[in-house]
């Protein structure tokens, strides 16, 4: 915790699991997905226009764009909280356009929201445990018959993940008084709890200071490198995108204006105009 930025990789993610590393890596390996001609409009406002791209398994992609460009809407489409008006979404080659957010969560989709959600009736550990994979022996009937079957085990996993994500606060903290950055870290821990195969982070580093940001990025990069998780990061901070991603997609007013490797995209004329605000 003392020094935020160290050069050696953390490589602690492997300690999160007891099973042999190889099988874990096989099981957790990220999955790819694709969007084809996706359009979304909110009662008149067209938030996404003809969005098509393909992201292969284990790829790390940053999404940049101005406020209101449609980044969060794009995350909603990927995670299934919004169904596109037109277009197609595929998960690992299977059609997922009409599949629910729950179906996608079972496939390994995990999402960190732009505005962190802390479940206030629950303690920090319980908040993290909410992210546990839903299919593991806790179907409706078995969880009614054996309500505490996996509780202890999941709690231990949650505590390990919290340490991994540098959450120092203990259970006695009430959710109301938690610092914003901690809530963000709790969200990340909750997402990692679900063994994500696709991890979508919507502005994870907003409102964090330099040190916290570096620490957060290090955890994410360590995790996705260990398990080849597919990663989508929405971020205004270019440094975060440079650290976490190899590819970037720039959005403007619901359209893709650039897509490719991070540096060329950031040097793209349209993107520069956008960031310097020269555009009319």
């Amino acid at each position, binding site marked *: 915790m003392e020094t935020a930025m160290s050069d050696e990789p953390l490589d602690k993610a492997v300690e999160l699991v007891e099973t042999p590393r190889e099988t874990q890596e096989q099981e957790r390996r990220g999955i790819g997905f694709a969007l084809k001609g996706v359009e979304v409009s909110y009662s008149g406002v067209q938030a996404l226009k003809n969005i098509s791209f393909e992201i292969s398994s284990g790829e790390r992609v940053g999404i940049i764009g101005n406020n209101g460009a449609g980044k969060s809407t794009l995350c909603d489409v990927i*995670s299934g909280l919004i169904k596109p008006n037109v277009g197609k979404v595929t998960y690992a080659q299977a059609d997922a356009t009409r599949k629910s957010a729950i179906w996608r969560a079972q496939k390994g989709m995990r999402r960190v929201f732009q505005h962190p959600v802390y479940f206030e009736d629950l303690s920090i550990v319980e908040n993290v445990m909410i992210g546990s994979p*839903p299919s593991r022996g*806790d179907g409706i009937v078995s969880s*009614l018959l054996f309500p505490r079957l996996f509780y202890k085990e*999941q709690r231990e996993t949650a505590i390990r993940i919290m340490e991994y994500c540098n959450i120092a606060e203990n259970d006695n903290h009430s959710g109301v008084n938690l610092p914003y950055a901690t809530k963000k870290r709790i969200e990340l821990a909750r997402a990692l709890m679900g063994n994500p195969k696709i991890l979508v982070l919507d502005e994870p580093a907003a409102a964090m200071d330099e040190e916290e940001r570096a620490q957060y990025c290090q955890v994410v990069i360590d995790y996705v490198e260990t398990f080849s998780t597919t990663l989508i990061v929405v971020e205004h901070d270019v440094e975060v995108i440079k650290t976490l991603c190899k590819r970037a997609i720039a959005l403007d007013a619901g359209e893709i204006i650039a897509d490719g490797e991070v540096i060329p995209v950031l040097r793209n004329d349209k993107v520069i105009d956008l960031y310097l605000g020269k555009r009319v």
Partner: protein
Amino acid sequence: MSVLVTSLALGSLYCLIAVVLVLHFKVSGFLNIGVLGYIALAPYLVASFTSEHSSIFIFLAVCLGIMFFISLLSFVIDFGLFKPISRLSSAMKVIVSISVLFITLTFIDIIWPSGANLETPVGTKSISIFSIDLLLIDAITLFVAFIVVFGLFFILSKTIMGNRLLAFAQDQQTARAYGVSPLYVKFLISVFTGVMASLAGILLASPGSPRVGVTSVIFYSLIALSPVIIARHSDLLICFISSFLVAFVQIFSSANINSINEGFHGIVSNFGLSTAITLGPTFADRFVPFAIALLALIIIPSRWIRDDANG
């Protein structure tokens, strides 16, 4: 002493009912008055399938069957039939749920035109614990209601399934993104409703004080709205405490109705007036519980009660 025991027993029943209403509110975002219909229905069903000669095992088996039936009914009505109107405002949904209640009551009237008579294996036997005489049904009520309510608190706070329910109640979108299925939550709520509403109905209708048979069940379950109001329909703990408070004040004032009348007349004559009004059982049973609720609304600051439901 008997006032205390009776009010504890009645309070625990109010608590069962109020907690069901609060749970429904947390998940569906409106006060589902239709749930009270199940509480009224349960004792009629039990009465039709049992007689005073039924053994305790048959009686319990019938109760279990009815819990199962009411769970299904709640799932179909509260989460199936209410689905098409999910876009209406919550005020409209409350009105729809009131119609559901009256439709249920009409059904009861059609199927059991001459009422029903619930006989339990327990009857009006009484027992003596620590040299205190109390009705066996009161003791059973207390025991069962406490187990169920604490069981529910345990499930909500100490199990993954309960935590998922609370998470879903606070933010459905986020919970769905983490794989908490709305179907799962609705199924759970239906099961809780089936168990708690049936128990509340059957125990309220069992012979013994202060309960007077199946027909008055709906009236008593309406009183359980008072703790729901006090808890601002979202705080389970306040709901729990206020159930007992309401029951106690209700039982206390009906036991002391004569002195209350004397006091009332004394106050009136202090102003040099005289009145022919005599406060009767209605005062204790109808005025008092809701007077407490209204008073609580005024004096308890709303910041004490977190309103975390998202309509």
